[in-house]
């Protein structure tokens, strides 16, 4: 059971909810403990609340072309087929721009003299470890690198078990609705959208619903965080669209203060545990209904 926690707007409480779910489920002694993946590789924050012990670390990145000058005839075919302008032939020399390369391998396939091999251009790291019964993994993109998607893709390939299974797997996505968020949602059984009841929250929630439900065809549900601030727009929208509001976390200064210190919601206010368990049960039910 893979749940992606996303939001559209940043700072609505994705990490609070993802960590809260993982910790609540950890205590309920499922056959295997939950797995929590921080897919916000640009600004990963879940570890600040879970304090995992990292057991394994790998460098990840893009496969970029390396040209063997002996075999290269400077014919220019590689530059011609590259859609990203990541390879250029200047006179007899071939120049490669790793930060533009998407690692598609088309240049390698098209080189008539087999002069190209691909080498790893490191753009980040992936790590896995444990925080008590919670298995944890995260990706971190190196500063100055533009592309988050390959890191998220490799993180998922590395730690996600093949096939379904009952084990709760929770992915914490980045804000926004562009390609890194899509990569974090792809393959999920359910997308949980955390929003706040404000015009900004609503505006970006609509966009997130467009991606998760309309483009990817995934079942969605909403958590309203800081409930009580702002206006009733989110409630009206969810009612009109038939999107279930599965949990409400009231606006509470104690939660904000605990968050500011890196203290998880469950640690600060243990009474939320049952609400998270109920949330998980509701998600399981909705995901199962969609499968049927």
């Amino acid at each position, binding site marked *: 059971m893979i749940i992606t926690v996303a939001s*559209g*707007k*940043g*700072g*609505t409480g994705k*990490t609070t909810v993802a960590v809260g779910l993982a910790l609540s489920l950890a205590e309920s002694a499922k056959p295997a403990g939950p797995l929590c993946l921080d897919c*916000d590789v*640009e*600004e990963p*924050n879940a570890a*600040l609340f879970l304090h995992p012990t990292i057991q394994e670390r790998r460098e990840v990145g893009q496969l970029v072309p390396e040209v063997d000058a002996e075999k290269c005839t400077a014919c220019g075919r590689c530059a011609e*087929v590259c*859609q*990203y302008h990541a390879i250029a032939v200047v006179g007899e020399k071939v120049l490669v721009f790793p930060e533009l390369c*998407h*690692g*598609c*391998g*088309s240049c390698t*396939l*098209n080189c008539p003299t087999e002069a190209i091999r691909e080498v790893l251009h490191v753009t980040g790291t992936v790590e896995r470890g444990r925080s008590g019964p919670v298995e944890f993994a995260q990706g971190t*993109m190196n*500063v*100055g*690198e*533009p*592309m*988050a998607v390959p890191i998220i893709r490799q993180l998922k390939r590395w730690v996600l078990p093949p096939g379904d299974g009952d084990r709760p797997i929770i992915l914490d996505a*980045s*804000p*926004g*609705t*562009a*390609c*890194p*968020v*899509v990569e974090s949602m*792809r393959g999920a059984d359910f997308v949980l959208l955390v929003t706040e009841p*404000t*015009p*900004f929250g609503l*505006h*970006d929630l609509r*966009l997130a619903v*467009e*991606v998760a439900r*309309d*483009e*990817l065809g995934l079942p969605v549900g909403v958590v309203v965080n800081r409930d009580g*601030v*702002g*206006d009733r727009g989110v409630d009206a929208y969810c009612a009109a669209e038939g999107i279930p509001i599965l949990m409400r976390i009231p606006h509470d*200064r104690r939660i*904000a*203060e605990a*968050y*500011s*210190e*890196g203290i998880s919601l469950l640690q600060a206010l243990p009474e939320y545990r049952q609400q998270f368990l109920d949330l998980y049960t509701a998600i399981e039910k909705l995901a199962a209904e969609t499968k049927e």
Partner: protein
Amino acid sequence: MKQLVILSGKGGTGKTTVAAALAHLASREFPIVLADADVDAANLELVLDPAKQETQDFTGGKSAVIDPAECTACGVCYDVCRFEAVIPGDEAYRVDSLACEGCAACHYQCPANAIRMEEQRDGQWFRSDTRFGPLFHAHLFAGQENSGKLVTLVKQQARLLGQDTGAALLVVDGPPGIGCPVISASSGMDLALHVVEPTVSGMHDLERILATTDHFGVQSLVAINKADLNPARSDGIAAFCAERGVELVGRIPYDTVVTEAMVQGRPVTEHTDGPVTEALRDVWEQVKKRLLLDGVGGER
């Protein structure tokens, strides 16, 4: 024309609130141009009441399309695609355009020449009038790539108009994160103002966004939003800034008037006088001093 970008690393720290307030305050002193560089979740328009003057399509990239009549279902495209974008079928294969990165590897390898590359309409961009000046903003369609390209386009348009009309300042509301849209938003800017919240996450993310703007040679200032939520963490951020030689230009208090103003669809500084507005006025004075009087960056 000077160019200022509002960034944060972490999402939801108040970039748009600060950008709208600075736009309001700056526009009372001289002509400005605005750009919303958060193209996949653009919010600046929600507090500026823009009147759209121009709408343009944005075609950022291409996607592979398989002609089912020509496809022999040989599976070569599936084998060469590294983005899991090819969906096998008994009679013809298909391409998931959301997963396709437009690399054209399948197009070149298809033995039946059944695959063509089609330009994709990835989004739209707009030129609008607001009461503070022209606003350039955009909407990247759900789940699309090329947000960096669209950010660059929006900024370029804003810059051109600003230069033509003699605007003194371009204010860019940036996206969260540190990846491609952020790099596009910061490139060529005279100054970045980082809006940070006094939390462990805020601090962690500030270090990464500062490293990013440093990497691309953009000077930085920091403002703490909701500073009184955790005064000790705010002091920690102030100490970090001092140590790193980055100027801290303000501590904005937490106040429900910020959300009230958002609900009213106005910048908070226009909505009310009070501690938040006072703090933002101070931030603006410091930004202005740094930007216009100390002469950071060069004339472009």
